[in-house]
């Protein structure tokens, strides 16, 4: 069967004859979700990242998320092995990954099946499928392809078979690794992206390679573009308003690392753990250029202890980890809380418990970060809700840690970790940077823990300061840092460490409501779900629903006025990516229902009947799913 016949058969409306590009109708759309998926190592990631970067340069809103298999090299053509990128393009700013996928480029049908089964593709979704498998010499592969193709077509997907490898071979001699740039060229055509910018982007992507490699990839890009212009019936344009200000495009983990750089911290101690490690990879590459050190410790506990030691003797330090690593650090975090040593701990959450889902998103660590470590170990917990927030949260965390001599935990998650979206390029401020380590003599009479009667705050004394010699200890201690088991002294220390949270709380501003300040339903969220919740609220408000949302950046302490805000709504519920029991289970009632983390916290603090809706499917919640929840809740 010829290629033209295939196209005719699969796609109604795609003509087998060569059409001139000018004749093609361009459909204007407001937004679209695109995926490019392949086996690991075929470059789908760089294709997707490049598409996002080009669209961002044109002024489109962009949100890209990596699709990562759990294994480094899963078997080729396996359903669980999909590797790639999911890109949402929009006319306006895009704050989340959106709903199901509108168009997907797949380099084989098996990885595509994985996405179909996960329910990630929109009904009728357009599929651009590498067609070389149809004629594979292995009859099993050829028949698997034919079978899948038939199944996809009969399920109503718009399948376009594309002879990618064959077309690539006509463009360059060795086309084995070049299909990703061919695909990028096709996508540039489909979404009417600027080819000049695309060429520049290809040069940027391959900047560390030879001129020849760059030239070959530009040829492939152009071949893909040409093929799509000639052979595809459809073409879209997502109108863009180019930004008038400089923006940076990074993912959440890179933003965290940039935040470490900007905060003036000098030491990051870490142990490799998914999905946090890429922050340390980037930091390891650049930190030394500004005089910093990334220390890869022998284990998570050592990383935390190393950070505490460095913090104790110098500037506040940071340790970066994910859930299992956080669990291991708990005892050391308790020591920092007890001895009042500033410390920033970044927890890029993943699915749990135990090894759980290392590459997948979950917001399961809120309670453990707040209440973890034994005894009463007050610490500050804040959650980044956007990629931009990842950057600023680290700077804020460092400052709070040093001002209050506390442990500050910054929560991110696997979704923000790999999500890329533009945000205004930050302008450096001297105030971001940690001050030099105090080495002045300690005034006589000053004690290591001169707890302020009202706030519990005490000035930290750092080794090297003459006259300040004392031994800090994880044991109960008095103001001289002497071990003390006296009941009054024990309570004095507990009180001081606890009051510091209240003192911080007094400096926080009330959070802002998204939508009206009164209504039928208030959704409350935290962390990476912000953009999704707000988009859902926006859609429902457009339908006339009286719904608003509130997003919390500080989880411990909670900002003021939350109870006043909740009072403006008939119903309040949290939306979270962690487990909660379904109230309609036969065995579940109000006496045993386990609420989601934030719902539980808010219920206990404000004595308000707050419901929750959660989803723990290892993928970011989609705005459409929240819309459904809103409708159901309001129609109850």
């Amino acid at each position, binding site marked *: 069967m010829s290629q033209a016949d295939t196209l005719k058969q699969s796609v109604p409306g795609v003509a087998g004859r060569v059409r001139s590009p000018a004749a093609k109708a361009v459909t204007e759309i407001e937004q679209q979700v695109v995926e490019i998926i392949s086996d690991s190592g075929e470059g789908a990631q760089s294709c997707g990242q490049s598409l996002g970067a080009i669209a961002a340069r044109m002024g489109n809103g962009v949100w890209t998320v990596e699709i990562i298999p759990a294994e480094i090299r899963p078997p080729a053509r396996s359903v669980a092995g999909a590797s790639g990128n999911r890109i949402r393009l929009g006319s306006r700013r895009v704050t989340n990954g959106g709903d199901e996928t509108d168009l997907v480029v797949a380099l084989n049908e098996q990885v595509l099946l994985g996405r179909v089964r996960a329910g990630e593709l929109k009904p009728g979704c357009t599929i651009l499928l590498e067609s070389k498998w149809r004629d594979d010499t292995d009859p099993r592969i050829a028949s698997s392809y034919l079978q899948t193709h038939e199944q996809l077509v009969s399920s109503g997907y718009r399948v376009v078979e594309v002879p990618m490898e064959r077309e690539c071979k006509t463009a360059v001699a060795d086309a084995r690794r070049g299909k990703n740039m061919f695909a990028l060229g096709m996508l540039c055509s489909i979404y009417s992206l600027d080819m000049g910018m695309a060429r520049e982007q290809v040069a940027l992507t391959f900047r560390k390679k030879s001129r020849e490699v760059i030239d070959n990839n530009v040829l492939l890009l152009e071949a893909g573009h040409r093929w799509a212009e000639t052979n595809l019936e459809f073409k879209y344009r997502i109108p863009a308003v180019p930004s008038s200000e400089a923006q940076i495009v990074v993912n959440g983990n890179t933003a965290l690392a940039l935040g470490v750089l900007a905060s003036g911290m000098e030491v990051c101690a870490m142990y490799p753990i998914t999905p946090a490690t890429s922050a340390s990879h980037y930091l390891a590459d650049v930190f030394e250029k500004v005089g910093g050190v990334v220390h890869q410790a022998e284990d998570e506990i050592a990383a935390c202890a190393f950070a505490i030691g460095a913090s104790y003797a110098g500037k506040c330090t940071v340790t970066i980890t994910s859930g299992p690593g956080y669990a291991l650090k708990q005892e050391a975090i308790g020591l920092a809380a007890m001895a009042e040593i500033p410390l920033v701990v970044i927890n890029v959450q993943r699915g749990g418990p135990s090894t759980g889902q290392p590459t997948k998103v979950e917001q399961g660590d809120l309670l453990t970060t707040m209440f973890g470590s034994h005894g009463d170990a007050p610490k500050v917990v804040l959650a980044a809700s956007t990629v931009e927030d990842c950057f600023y949260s680290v700077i804020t965390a460092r400052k709070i840690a040093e001002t209050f001599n506390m442990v500050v935990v910054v929560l991110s998650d696997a979704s923000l970790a790999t999500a890329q979206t533009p945000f205004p390029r930050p302008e450096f401020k001297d105030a971001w940077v940690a001050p030099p380590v105090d080495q002045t003599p300690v005034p006589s009479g000053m004690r290591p823990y001169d707890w302020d009667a009202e706030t519990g705050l005490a000035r930290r004394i750092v080794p090297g300061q003459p006259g300040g010699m004392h031994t*800090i200890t994880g044991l109960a201690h008095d103001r001289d840092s002497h071990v003390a088991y006296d009941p009054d002294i024990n309570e004095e220390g507990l009180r001081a460490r606890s009051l510091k949270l209240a003192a911080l709380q007094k400096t926080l501003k009330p959070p802002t409501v998204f939508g009206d300040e009164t209504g039928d339903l208030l959704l409350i969220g935290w962390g990476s779900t912000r953009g999704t919740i707000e988009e859902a609220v926006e859609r429902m408000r457009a339908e006339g629903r009286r719904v608003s949302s509130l997003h919390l950046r500080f989880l411990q302490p909670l900002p003021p006025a939350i109870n006043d805000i909740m009072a403006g709504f008939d119903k309040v519920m949290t939306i979270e990516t962690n487990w909660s029991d379904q109230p309609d289970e036969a065995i579940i009632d109000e006496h045993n229902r386990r609420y989601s983390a934030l719902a539980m916290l808010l219920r206990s603090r404000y004595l308000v009947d707050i419901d929750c809706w959660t989803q723990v499917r290892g993928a970011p919640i989609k705005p459409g799913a929240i819309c459904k929840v809103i409708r159901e809740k309001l129609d109850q």
Partner: protein
Amino acid sequence: MATAASHCLLKLYEERHELEDYQSGVPRWCTGCGDNAILAAVQRLCRDEQLRPEKTVFVSGIGCSSRFPHYMKTYGFHGIHGRALPVAEGIRMARKDLHVFVNTGDGDCCSIGAAHWVHAIRYNMNMTVFLHDNQIYGLTKMQASPTSPKGLRSNTTPRGAFLEAMQPLTVTLGVQNVSFVAQAVDWIPELLYDIVSAAFRHRGFSFIRIVQRCPEWLPSLFEPWLHDPERVRLLHHDAGIQISPALARVYRNQEHHDPADIDRAREIASCIDPIPVGILYRNPEVPCYEDLRETDHLRTNEFIKSGLEAEFDKFTVWPSA
């Protein structure tokens, strides 16, 4: 001129630190505990080296010996069980101007903190580490430790310890980048001091295992060694420890051992009776991790800003002109 000179002298006199400048509180260790001997030797070292108390940090974990920093009038960090070494590494990484000492027991170092011990040897950061090895858990009341002799009856091994004792010296000498290993016994204070002093002067991870008595739980464990000087073998060398004539008359079991000889050091390390005392191994050429990681940059705000701006540039989408 004369005024200036006398002023300098006066200042030197004023800044001179005496033993009491390093002493803090009354140790709460049992009478006869080996920790007291180590404390005396270390305070003497600080005085003799005239270490500035504010530039000196003692780091410990948990256990009887880890109370050590509380009895020094320097900076101290009495942390959590097993983690003294990574804390000390962090301090050293942040502050190369500080003298860092670590006090850790046989449970703290060889059991709960064993992973850190192995890696600390490999990092070879400049610090002096005292393994207070009394072969028993004292603070938690007499449980077997990894260095307890086989057959030792304790609260967790009432019918005798099941396993052969771990040998901290052989473990240490088996790790890549080992740079200083010595052994002392608490009942020969003169050599204890000499060894502590040599360890301090070595630049790198100086590891001293101190065989010490626990009068509370194992009062007679080392009696045979105390009563028979032949059961202690003194290691001496021009490049190691020299033995005074007085000591040489009592301890006649001696070996001329070159601390550069790692093969012989490993043989000596595996000998538990007689107990070898002296410097087993020293290699001043092993690089220190903190030196390898040092950057030349002066971290001004301007410098951080320019580094950050360069990174932003990599990711910036500029507005179209």
